[in-house]
């Protein structure tokens, strides 16, 4: 992993010193364990702060549309599979052009789910987590333990089928062949097997801790609307209270707005301060998009987005 980080730093330095880009968007080491953070390097010296690890849980493509500094210039961005798929999506949705981004590609190692690591040490304060080969070394005040990284990856990383970037300008390190052993068709839409009443219970249980901070929305590269529907005031589509109906309205509609666009990058779940697992319901939409329209978002720059086209023989049993 350190070799990749070194490769990223070198690539970034080269691009910045040549003036090929204004800024390199990557990750830097965070001040708390397992939280490396989006970092913007503007000079070759700043590029020394770049890193790469299994703690890089934000989707950097988000910042291609949310950045306020130097918006006109060309930027380089570190992108693994899912991030590159979102870049494709942003290009297709006319938010950026291909020429504006230089993609520094990396194969995703699979990112760590902080919540899973914390759950192994209930109520304990974790002071440091480092990667050591295939293990994490987790330290607290009175303990130090090794945890196999494979056991604590984010759920979406197990079922990822695209760890390598789909578009790339330069690749750092080797492409990766293996998946992490999951099969999305077996785990997507986990509540389908339940009865309607049980489904509502499962859904409602999954969002019960929501504090409506909207970190899931704000961490998502698909949610670039200048005014989100929950922030519309005239008319106000969605109530502001903690009433279950208001909270559920937010989650259902946000998920639906991502239909046919979500790359299952997991940034929403990683950002959530209360550990809500949105993939419980977003995976249903992605499954439908795959099954009904044979589409996987962000794999191809040319393919038309599934909800912007139709075929005469699209399924319509539900229409009377």
């Amino acid at each position, binding site marked *: 992993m350190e070799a990749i980080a070194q490769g990223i730093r070198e690539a970034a330095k080269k691009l910045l010193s040549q003036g090929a880009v204004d800024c390199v968007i990557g990750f830097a080491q965070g001040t708390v364990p397992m939280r490396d953070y989006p970092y913007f390097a503007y000079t070759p010296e700043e590029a020394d702060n770049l890193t790469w690890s299994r703690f890089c849980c934000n989707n950097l493509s988000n910042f291609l549309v949310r950045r306020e500094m130097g918006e006109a210039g060309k930027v380089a961005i570190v992108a693994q599979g899912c991030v590159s798929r979102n870049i494709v999506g942003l290009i297709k949705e006319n938010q950026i052009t291909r020429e504006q981004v230089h993609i520094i590609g990396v194969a995703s190692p699979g990112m760590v789910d902080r919540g899973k690591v914390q759950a192994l040490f209930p109520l304990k304060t974790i002071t440091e987590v480092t990667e050591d080969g295939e293990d994490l070394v987790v330290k607290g005040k009175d303990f130090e333990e090794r945890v196999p990284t494979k056991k604590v990856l984010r759920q979406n990383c197990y079922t990822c089928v695209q760890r390598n970037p789909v578009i790339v300008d330069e690749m750092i390190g080797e492409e990766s062949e293996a998946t992490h052993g999951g099969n999305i068709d077996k785990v997507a839409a986990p509540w389908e097997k339940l009865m309607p009443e049980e489904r509502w219970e499962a859904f409602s249980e999954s969002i019960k801790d929501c504090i409506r901070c909207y970190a899931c929305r704000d961490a998502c590269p698909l949610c670039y609307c200048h005014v989100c529907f929950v922030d519309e005031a005239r008319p106000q589509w969605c109530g502001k209270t903690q009433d279950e109906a208001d909270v559920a309205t937010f989650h259902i509609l946000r998920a*639906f707005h991502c239909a046919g666009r979500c790359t299952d990058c997991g940034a929403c779940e990683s950002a959530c301060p209360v550990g809500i697992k949105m993939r419980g319901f977003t995976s*249903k939409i992605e499954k439908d998009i795959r099954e009904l329209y044979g589409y996987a978002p962000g794999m191809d720059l040319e393919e038309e987005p599934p909800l912007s086209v139709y075929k005469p023989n699209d399924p319509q049993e539900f229409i*009377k």
Partner: protein
Amino acid sequence: MYARRRFAVLKNLLEYVGIEPGRLHFSWISSAEATKFQETVIEVTDAVKALGPAKHMIKDIRKVA
């Protein structure tokens, strides 16, 4: 025709999170099909009545908080 795709996904999503099947209806009705419109409305209201009052996504402002 675009709407057909969006409705398909929306209907599946709502039923997936526990809105009862039968509460959501979709129909193609032209402005010239008054009879079909009338029949469909009757069908829909009957189906929804049979299900009884909605149980979810109901906000009651009389409740505390």
